[in-house]
């Protein structure tokens, strides 16, 4: 090779790689020409400047032209795709709608996941915020609050924490300026704002001095409370606000949107004395901020060793509990994680079904396009070009479906949230953000690959020469296409069976939950929390007189059957205490909690809880305290084979000075603390000079909700300083405490219904297509004397064979997957026989309908016309 041609080859080696910037078709067509022209041009120049300018020109030209070539091609493909899609408007509309349902549902559930699990919490560097919990070594996953002295000691000793704080949230009545209202707030230790990483908008945060047991009455309020009650008064600092009985000075206003915990609108110092607080009173939540760079494991191991140390120093209260650090996200949202993931899986299956459905639709369409593709191939279109064209079409479908799906998701979020009867914590934000949009786009693209590529490749396998022949039936060569279409339908049916089985289990579980025997009759009972000014109605005779007046006022309302008071509404109360049975001392480590319920006489009557032994409380018991009524199971467990009447028990840790309480009666077990799952045993105490119950329970003759207004106005007329809140029927309370189960069941059922519908549509479309392909065969059969019913049976058999295959696969997979639902299920086994009998029945009925409809068309085939078709 001469030097000149060597040089030329070298120059081309440098030039050629730039051509990769062009679309493949352009490159294939003009690569050689471009190279030749470039070399010629290069040879023309003799000077270095000239050569440089040729290079510059050539490279600049490519960088300028290549994107334009891409653009031209995309525009061309899009135009063509639009034309094709418009031509087959019904198929296009069906595909877009199916995709929109699939992508929309997926995006909707992802918005939930995003709001709960992904969107950063609204605090600076949220990854450094942890919750500090204690848990029993018996059940390390069951975490609990911590006690004040433990917090106090950890705060003094922890080296890996920037700060630690404790809080107890509650609702307090706010009186004074404006109407009295009950507002969520929190008693907090001084570190809370430092841990959450936010400074007040106005004024100052709670200081360590404020938090001393003898500290001043101060409060920090939320921006929203400042707005609502004080119209953003700029001189708010220094004003006082009456929270329950205390007048507290407002020292700060937090920035808008800060509501930790949950929906708190004000924060008062806890002002607890570590010397007086019990080390076993676990009623405070603790949060802490890690020092930069400290991991969860490091924090946990420090906390563990600190708590061990504390236990060693205080052997009397050593219960062997362990301390743990958990990410704040898990603390506030951990309980939703499983449900959200379950829903994501469910909706993912639905999306797969939608994909399979559209894929099937396109396969049928592809077979009618084989001629078009053959013609284009004959005219010189490359495979790559055609593939690109087909994928562009799918992409258009996918994006149209995605766009419509996102709109559906937007519209669906409010509908979804309306299923939730409780006020969610304010940090939860489900409005779609860029992450949700990116997800929707991603899902649309992946979906496009899922449904678009198979039919696109399939199109090439057709026999082109055959397709071009006059009258060629075309179609992706018979068996392969049929195999694929049938496979897809079987897959769709199988997936829908999985969802259906899941929904069946959820429904069974939800019904079991709602039909459980609560031990009392929740129908027709209204419940409300009352907060009266304690200065006027302090515990003892004044409060007793108030309850008597309230009872007589309320009882005089029409339709009221009975009235009583309790320290907590049934199913919505968390007051638990540990206890000791006389003569049966138990180690602190092995103590269990009971529901500690203080009631007025008539409580058991109002809730219809039967008295089994002994006597009910009477008004006289107010002055003869230290008696209890216990639940049946509690009695049997603690005094087996003997009468519990006259036996004694004591509340609190083993060694204390609390008085012994004598059992005077036994009632049937009634759920009080937990609606779902195992409830603690219940011990009832009569109201007494120390404790005045403040939840009013009213049994009515008719709908209790009709009494709401009258009840409220009667109470406020009695004393306008009494704050009436949480006015719900017990059935509403049940709906509130079981909303997650209902939510999950409703959504799961909706997805399953959609899935079955889509699978049925898929089956219907496939059988219809088969019928249209076999018009000829049907014609011959009928000409040979086959009866219409025989032809119908033949086609129905085809459809049912597909459905049965899908059903078998689906049932097996569902059976294997169902255990994943186990934690979501209540008193229903994942292998619940009722579900696994009902699902096939539902599916077979739907499939039979979907397969039957096309048979009617088949038997209308006129043999003469069918045969002439040949």
């Amino acid at each position, binding site marked *: 090779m001469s030097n000149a041609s060597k040089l030329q080859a070298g120059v081309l080696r440098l030039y050629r790689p730039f051509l990769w910037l062009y679309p493949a078709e*352009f490159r294939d*067509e*003009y690569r*050689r*020409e*471009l190279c*030749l*022209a*470039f070399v*010629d*041009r290069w040879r023309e120049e003799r000077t270095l400047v000239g050569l440089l300018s040729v290079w510059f*020109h*050539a490279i*600049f*030209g*490519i960088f*300028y*032209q*290549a994107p*334009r*070539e891409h653009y*031209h091609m995309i525009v061309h493909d899009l135009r063509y795709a639009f034309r094709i899609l418009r031509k087959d408007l019904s198929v296009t509309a069906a595909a877009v709608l199916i995709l929109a349902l699939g992508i929309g549902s997926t995006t909707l559930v992802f918005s939930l996941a995003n709001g709960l699990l992904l969107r950063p919490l609204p605090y600076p560097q949220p990854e450094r915020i942890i919750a500090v919990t204690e848990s029993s070594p018996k059940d390390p996953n069951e975490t609990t609050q911590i006690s004040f002295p433990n917090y106090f000691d950890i705060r003094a000793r922890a080296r890996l924490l920037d700060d630690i704080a404790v809080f107890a949230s509650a609702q307090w009545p706010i009186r004074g300026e404006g109407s009295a209202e009950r507002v969520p707030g929190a008693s907090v230790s001084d570190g809370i704002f430092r841990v959450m990483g936010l400074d007040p908008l106005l004024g100052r945060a709670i200081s360590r001095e404020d938090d001393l047991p003898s500290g001043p009455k101060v409060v920090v309020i939320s921006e929203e409370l400042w707005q609502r009650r004080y119209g953003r008064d700029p001189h708010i600092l220094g004003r006082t606000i009456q929270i329950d009985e205390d007048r507290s000075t407002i020292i700060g206003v937090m920035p808008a949107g800060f509501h930790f915990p949950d929906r708190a609108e004000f924060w008062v110092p806890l002002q607890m004395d570590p010397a007086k607080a019990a080390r076993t009173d676990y009623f405070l939540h603790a949060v802490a901020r890690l020092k930069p760079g400290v991991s969860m494991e490091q924090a946990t191991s420090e906390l563990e060793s600190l708590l061990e140390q504390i236990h060693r120093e205080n052997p009397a209260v050593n219960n062997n509990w362990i301390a743990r650090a958990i990410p704040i996200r898990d603390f506030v949202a951990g309980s939703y994680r499983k449900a959200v993931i379950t829903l994501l899986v469910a909706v993912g299956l639905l999306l797969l079904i939608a994909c399979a459905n559209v894929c099937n639709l396109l396969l049928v369409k592809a077979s009618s396009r084989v001629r078009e593709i053959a013609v284009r191939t004959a005219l010189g279109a490359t495979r790559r070009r055609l593939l690109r064209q087909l994928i562009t079409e799918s992409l258009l479908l996918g994006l149209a479906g995605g766009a419509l799906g996102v709109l559906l998701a937007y519209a669906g979020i409010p509908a979804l949230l309306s299923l939730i009867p409780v006020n969610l914590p304010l940090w939860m934000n489900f409005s779609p953000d860029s992450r949700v949009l990116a997800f929707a786009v991603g899902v649309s693209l992946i979906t496009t690959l899922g449904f678009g590529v198979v039919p696109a490749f399939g199109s090439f396998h057709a026999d082109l020469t055959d397709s071009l022949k006059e009258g060629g039936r075309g179609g992706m060569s018979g068996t392969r296409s049929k195999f694929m279409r049938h496979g897809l339908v079987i897959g769709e049916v199988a997936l829908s069976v999985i969802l259906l089985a899941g929904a069946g289990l959820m429904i069974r579980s939800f019904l079991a939950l709602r039909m459980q025997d609560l031990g009392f009759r929740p129908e027709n009972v209204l419940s409300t929390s009352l907060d009266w000014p304690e200065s006027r109605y302090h515990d003892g005779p004044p409060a007793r007189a108030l309850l008597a007046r309230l009872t007589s006022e309320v009882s005089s309302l029409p339709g009221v059957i009975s009235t009583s008071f309790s320290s907590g509404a049934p199913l919505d109360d968390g007051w638990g205490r540990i206890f000791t049975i006389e003569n049966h001392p138990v180690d602190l480590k092995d103590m269990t909690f009971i529901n500690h319920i203080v009631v007025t006489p008539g409580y058991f009557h109002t809730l219809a809880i039967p008295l089994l032994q002994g006597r009910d409380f009477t008004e006289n018991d107010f002055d003869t305290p230290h008696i209890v009524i216990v639940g049946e199971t509690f009695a049997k467990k603690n005094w087996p084979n003997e009468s519990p009447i006259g036996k004694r028990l004591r509340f609190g840790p083993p060694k204390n000075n609390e008085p012994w309480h004598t059992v005077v009666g036994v009632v049937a077990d009634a759920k009080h603390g937990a609606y779902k799952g195992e409830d603690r045993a219940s011990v009832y105490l009569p109201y007494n000079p120390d404790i005045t119950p403040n939840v009013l329970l009213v049994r009515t003759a008719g709908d209790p909700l009709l009494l709401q207004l009258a009840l409220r106005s009667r109470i406020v007329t009695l004393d306008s300083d009494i704050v009436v809140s949480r006015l719900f029927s017990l059935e509403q309370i049940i709906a509130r405490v079981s909303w997650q189960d209902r939510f999950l069941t409703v959504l799961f059922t909706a997805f399953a219904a959609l899935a079955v519908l889509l699978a049925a549509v898929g089956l219907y479309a496939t059988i219809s297509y088969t019928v249209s392909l076999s018009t000829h065969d049907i014609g011959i059969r009928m000409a040979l004397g086959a009866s219409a019913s025989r032809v119908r049976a033949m086609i129905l058999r085809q459809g049912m064979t597909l459905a049965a295959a899908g059903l078998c696969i689906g049932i097996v997979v569902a059976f294997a997957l169902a255990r994943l639902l186990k934690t979501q299920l209540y008193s229903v086994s994942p292998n619940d026989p009722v579900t696994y009998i009902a699902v096939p029945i539902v599916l077979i009925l739907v499939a039979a309908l979907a397969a039957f409809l096309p048979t009617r068309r088949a038997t209308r085939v006129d043999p003469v016309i069918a045969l002439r078709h040949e």
Partner: protein
Amino acid sequence: MRPFLLSRDTFHILVALADRDRHGYSIMQEIAERTGGEIRLSPSTLYSAVKRLLEQGFIEELEERPDPEHDDERRRYYRLTKTGKRAAMEEARHLEKLLSDARASGLVRKRA
């Protein structure tokens, strides 16, 4: 309304093909010569334009080589089609009209 709107490069390519069929490099050369080196198309600009002109039917690719002796057999030759010629003529007339308008308004000096 103008029936065609030709870009400068496109017009030059059509003009270069007006007298005879040429291959790509020959078009580039012709344009450079005609404009005294003022306009030098890069290969990429040329072939993008050629592709568009082929699609529009203004030029066509020749099956056989017109000048076998001087020809590199691998090169593709292009010819102006009737449509292409019409388009170029239309454009030329338009430019002429534009020039005469400019002269009439005194913007451009009249030729002696």
